[in-house]
């Protein structure tokens, strides 16, 4: 089956079998290895990508679902040379230890901040409930999101979060 969609802002076209999973296509076909396959049960969130801005578990989503939609992976958020403010906040606040959950954490956090640029702790807890950090860096993760939100607010914008 032929799929046309946008991945990290670029228009792409590719063939998939109906049963192929988004995680495998993104990792193996596109070389986007930032998303991590961990539980394979859409519980842990390590494979989170944004599909039209919504966090989904790529390990349990068919590649078909990409058709005609915007896919954002961690590679589209920033890169090792130019980090997004949110990624810098994760580093500054020690919101990671091993980093395996981090791409998923960052993407879900990004989706949250776009919806709620000034999230309460309850919002953060609810949104990140599906992202497991086995190193239990949750204190740093919460601090990172709050720091990024404050920085964006200070910059004075139209209220939206990039």
């Amino acid at each position, binding site marked *: 089956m032929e799929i046309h969609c946008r991945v990290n802002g670029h228009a792409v076209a590719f063939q998939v079998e109906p049963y192929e999973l988004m995680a495998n296509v993104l990792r193996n076909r596109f070389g*986007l*290895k*930032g*998303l*991590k*396959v*961990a*539980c*394979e*049960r859409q*519980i*842990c969130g*390590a494979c989170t990508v944004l599909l039209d801005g919504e966090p989904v578990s790529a390990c349990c989503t068919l590649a078909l679902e990409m058709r005609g939609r915007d896919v954002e*992976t*961690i*590679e589209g*958020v*920033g*890169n*090792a040379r130019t*980090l997004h403010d949110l*990624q810098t906040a*994760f*580093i*500054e606040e*020690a919101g*990671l*230890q*091993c*980093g*395996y*959950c*981090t*791409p998923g954490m*960052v993407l879900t956090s990004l989706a949250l901040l776009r919806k709620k640029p000034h999230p309460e702790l309850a919002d*953060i*807890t609810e949104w*990140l*409930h599906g*992202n*497991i*950090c*086995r*190193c*239990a*860096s*949750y*204190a*740093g*993760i*919460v601090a990172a999101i709050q720091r990024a939100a404050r920085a964006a607010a200070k910059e004075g914008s139209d209220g939206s979060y990039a």
Partner: protein
Amino acid sequence: MARTLDTVIGRVVGQGLPRPDDQQRVSGAFVFATDYEVPGMLEGAVARSAYAHAWIRSIDTAAALRVPGVVCVLLPEDLADLDPYYGPVYRDQPILAMGRALFEGEPVAAVAAETRAAALEAVRLIEVDYEPLPALVSLDEALDEGAPDIHTSLRRGKHYSGVLARVDPLPAKNVAAEWRYERGDAFAELERADLVVSGEYRVPMIHHFPLEPMVAIADFRNDGLTVWSGTQTPFEIRDELSLIFGMPAAKIRIVALPMGGSFGAKAFPKIEPLAAALSRKAQRPVRVALSMEETARSIRRAGARVRIRSGVRSDGTLLARCVDVDVQIGAYADAGPRVMQKAAYVAAGPYRIPHLSIRSRAVFTNTPPVGAYRGFGAPEMTWAYEQHTDEIAARLGIDPIAFRRRNLLRRGERYAEGDKPIDTDFAEVLDRLWALSGGQQPRRRLRGKGVAVSFKPSQSPTESTAIVRLHADGSASVLCATADMGQGTRAALGQIAAAELGIPVDAIAVHVPDTDIAPFDQTTTSSRSTVVMGGAVQEAARRVRHEFLRRVADHAGIDQRLLSIQDGLVTGPQFQQSVAQALLETAPRFGSEILAIGHVHIASSSSRIGGATPFWEPAWVVAEVEVDPDTGEVRVLGLWTAIDAGYAINPRQVAAQDLGSTLQGLGTALYEEMVYDHGLLRTPSLLEYRVPLISDLPSTFQSMTVACGDGPGPFGAKGIGEGGVMAVAAALGNAVADAVGVRIRDLPLSAEQVWRAMRGVMDRQGDESDHASTKRLGEAEGG
């Protein structure tokens, strides 16, 4: 040398610098073990025993071999020309089950294919004819007179042979090892005590559940074997593969790739021998990447039953303690007997007890092997002795903190003969932490506070070696085999090297551990690496610095003692030159690169566990909870934790490790349990097995790092990283007891168990000591 400690302390070390590869981690560019690829590699998959204990009558691979893309199937007969067993304590674990499967999930055959899908399909088509045998899971089942033997003979493994030299294999049926400690006459002293308090405490089997599953890629061709693996112990694995395949170590290369979490799961051989055997048969590189559920069937933490009897004087002085520790290990020993030994060694707790008797056993069961888990037995023991401590205090009517203050060991006192004297201030730090937590709170129904103090020795005897290379352009490489599981040690090693060399941190590269390139390191375990490998890196860097300054001094005609290096600049009287320029100018006479070795070796001692620890790793936790009377749910309102880092090379990283350890440990306290139904795992995934989530963050969560500069490591450092997980469960148990007046002695403190306990409906038969009297935190001295 014209350099003061001030110039490095607080500028390079002692700084919460971002870790060098964090930018890659947050951007998804970081290459973990599961991201690594070798050109032309096949994908492996494993056929696993569906039974916890069974004869394997036959394996039919005909259908599997017909799957398109399958290259080969590995069977036990393919291992006949090898010595296919491994294990750091006993060489008892075979690459594939040999005629009998001993735990559910044990590999019985393996497939290598062009694609993962083909390999998995072939595994599905492998038909194994099993004849089930009785599965032994609980301690009682395994120790029963009529139980079958899980092993009838055992060969010693290499890694722990020194420290377990006086521990005989298989002293009784299904007992892998026993270990005892006696001093004074504990049993007689119990008779003379004013009060004897008894308790039996239980800890369930749990699993690490690292987010990244296990993986290894092996390439067995061309007169050598290379294995890329997410592992904490590259040199130990090299040793084991050398014995299995009969190859010299120099021809075996292990590359220890960074891990997405490990917590001890990925120590000692796991999937490496199987991957190597598959590659040997296929004559191509083979990757064996496990799922999370397979990883959960490969390794776990010990279950334990701890019986403590203590004799005290009525003024609260501990006189005697008798401890019985039964550790439920798996079907193969892995590190289990060493965990038992180190756990039993600290089972008395950090207390002054003149008369002590500790007896311990490691019992084989038909479950996955027990290996290293953060804390290495200390968390299990602390659950027992710190709750027991509160029970004694309650029976005596003494405030639990006052009781601890009286009995905790002081700096300089010995815990046991032959070991390092206590190098921390147990009681003082407890007081400070208690004060930080707000001290005594007004009594409120269903709310309570509890404390716990824990400790463990690090690894000894022990050894680490490092090479530092100063390149011609003034940058430097650190070549060492310290593995990366996110704990930040490699960043700390870079800071140490930068501080000693006088060059910027970002001019230092700490390379991925490769046994072909990095010199010998024992393991990355037991919080040892900042101290032991750090010491080796520091020594190597100092040697490089000394040689560099000797050349510069000689070339410039200046007294070497008047030269110093900072931020990549060499300065002296009327002299200033960049390191790079100095290297360029001295090269024609002396050569371009400067390279040196550092080596730290701590020998064995008369200590009962093989060596004197280089430092003690203590942990203190204070917990405050609120219990829901209708559901039994324990809400954690606050956690305060303290560790002793000696000197924090990277304070932010040290605090992050402690917070992480404590919150991870909260899961072991409230939720975690591996449930085996006749040996079959009912909790193989994160769906059934509850781990801490972001919602588990307490409203107040603080970590306190004590740093008196009194450690044996660089700049006075000690090791950290295990910490909070050791004490948090006991602190929560004590807090729950304070909140609802009932003592729960079995982990986890699940809502169901707490609910039942509140209503006096206990699951298991208990003796009188099950029904502890209501206790209150009395007047604490000084709040």
